[in-house]
């Protein structure tokens, strides 16, 4: 008999080859993937060192500190009014919202309260900072997963909000507008009507993105079920803000914490999502931006007349004591623990920034995910490097 046919020989070679391939795959060595420090998905200089087995992350380490500026040390050699300049630069996309908890903590220690008009304007700018910050995220996150257009829409429409902030405060990014006992100055003429138009426009932007991004099947496929943070894990890690509300935790400091700001006077909802995945985080933020525009509208309508500055001593000395004030900032819970010894500046000022805790869950979260999902998870957790490194 003739020996093996060509066909048989080919089949034999093919099985040998496939076995060899399997063996090769079993022997793969772990590979270390260095993401960043300058990757666009990291919003600054954050480095993620992921150990990969094939496409799967088996261990991830997050390296931060490339932008550490030592603000906690610097606050100790500055006066209270000077500190607001520093803390403007913590979360630089919503700077005004950073000022608020610090000023409130100082006011709590001094036992003074700003007049109602100032509280309304504060709350309004707080929410406008949220719109400017998260509005950008809504486009940015789509950019990270491959859709270019929404980012341009976001930059375009955020500019309207920034213009309004600039018109009233003089600063586009760093308003430095909040003062102990009130505000730097009152709103300019015609500002209210302009802002109403801007809020309407931003609601249209939200509707647009809801169809374009959140309703997009490609976006959903990239985000659904990716990077699920269970509520219990998230809380133990101190994950806060929209990130934890997207895990189904119905908790918002604007509603749940007594505050001199006027959220309690407004009609609004806290949005949550039960899934805890990247899509849920996007979706919750989208709703929060829309809710914020509605809140600003209500405040514009109900804006009381009156002074914007309470009587405070010319030289601000904060009585000895300790105060902790935290607010629900765009990125999550931000708080200041101020220890005063009666001097012109804080004796110790612990800055609790949201992103530091939000990102500290990453080593836990990235384990077992796949490489493309790293980007989705980083984008959906949404951090600002200045807010991590302080």
């Amino acid at each position, binding site marked *: 008999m003739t020996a093996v046919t060509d066909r048989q020989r080919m089949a034999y070679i093919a099985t040998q080859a496939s076995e060899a391939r399997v063996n090769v795959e079993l022997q793969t060595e772990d590979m270390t993937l260095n993401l960043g420090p300058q990757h666009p998905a990291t919003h600054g200089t954050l480095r993620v060192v992921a150990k990969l087995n094939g496409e799967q992350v088996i261990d991830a380490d997050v390296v931060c500190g490339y932008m*550490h500026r030592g603000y906690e040390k610097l606050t100790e*050699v500055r006066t209270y009014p000077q500190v607001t300049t520093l803390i403007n630069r913590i979360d630089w996309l919503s700077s005004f919202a950073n000022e608020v908890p610090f000023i409130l903590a100082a006011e709590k220690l001094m036992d003074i309260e700003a007049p109602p008009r100032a509280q309304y304007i504060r709350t309004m700018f707080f929410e406008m900072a949220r719109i400017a910050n998260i509005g950008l995220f809504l486009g940015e996150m789509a950019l990270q997963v491959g859709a270019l257009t929404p980012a341009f829409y976001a930059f375009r429409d955020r500019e309207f909000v920034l213009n309004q902030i600039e018109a009233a405060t003089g600063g586009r990014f760093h308003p430095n507008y909040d003062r102990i006992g009130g505000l730097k100055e009152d709103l300019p003429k015609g500002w209210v009507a302009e802002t109403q138009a801007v809020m309407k426009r931003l609601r249209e932007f939200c509707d647009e993105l809801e169809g374009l991004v959140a309703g997009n099947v490609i976006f959903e496929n990239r985000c659904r079920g990716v990077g699920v943070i269970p509520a219990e894990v998230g809380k*133990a890690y*101190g994950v806060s803000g929209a990130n934890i509300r997207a895990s189904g935790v*119905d908790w918002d400091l604007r509603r749940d914490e007594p505050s001199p700001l006027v959220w309690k006077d407004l009609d609004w909802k806290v949005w949550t999502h039960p899934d805890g995945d990247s899509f849920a985080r996007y979706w919750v933020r989208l709703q929060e931006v829309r809710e914020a525009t509605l809140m600003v509208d209500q405040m514009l309508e109900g804006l009381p007349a009156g002074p914007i500055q309470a009587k405070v001593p010319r030289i601000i000395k904060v*009585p000895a004591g*300790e105060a902790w004030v935290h607010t629900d900032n765009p990125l999550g819970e931000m708080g200041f623990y101020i220890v005063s010894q009666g001097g012109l500046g804080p004796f110790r000022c612990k800055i609790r920034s949201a992103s530091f805790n939000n990102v500290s869950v990453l080593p836990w979260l990235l384990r077992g995910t796949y490489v493309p999902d790293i980007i989705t998870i980083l984008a959906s957790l949404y951090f600002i490097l200045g807010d991590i490194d302080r």
Partner: protein
Amino acid sequence: MSRLSSADTPTTEVDAPEETPVDTARQELVERLAAELGDGLLESVVDNGDVWVRVRRDAWRATAEACKAALAMDYFCFLSGIDWMPSASPNPEESVSTEVEGVEDEEADEPAAEPEPEPEPAPSGAASATEGWTTGVAGGDTRFQVLLRLYSTTSHLGLTLKADLDDADPRVASIAEVYGGADWHERETWEMYGFTFEGHQNLSHIYLPSEFEGFPLRKDYPLLAREVKPWPGIVDVELMPEGLEDAAIAPAGDAADTAESAE
């Protein structure tokens, strides 16, 4: 169906409780914690809508566990430290501003320092380095304190925990296994204050370069930028040079006259 948004509850009801009911809630919180810890709890302060609890150093981890299990403190805010030593490089504004305050005395309203609350229940029988130092609310008998803030997302109550650490060898148990978020905060506190967290798996630098020496947030660590160059902010309130000062004061002296003559 899962609930996608919170119920339309009137938010005022949540905020409504005035100080007294909230304080009973906080008082009860302290009592529950005291029952859990026994003599591990050294001191507690309920004031101005907040709670401070000082615990024994060796009860630190037990405190965190008790807070999580018995007090439903499910949310980790932050962990940090305090150095009560008076600062080596004090606030440069302090020296200048006293002069300015003298000048503008009449403009200043009641200085807010007046209703000064008694900041610290004097540490009883404290025979240690903190003699003569101000150590704040629930302040310590030693130089260093570790500071932990926990919060409950269900009862919306939070509390600040403190523990005194040894001056020479500040060390305390790690709570990273109780609250995952404490991992990074302990690394930060370790590099900034030099506290050792026993049982922490990876006490490595998080912000500073790995070869960094010293503990920047300790009060005796000099702020080098200030050593090299004085604080430029002082320039703003610097007194004018002699000649200019006279020139500036002279018109102000007969301001009334000039105003009248202008009219």
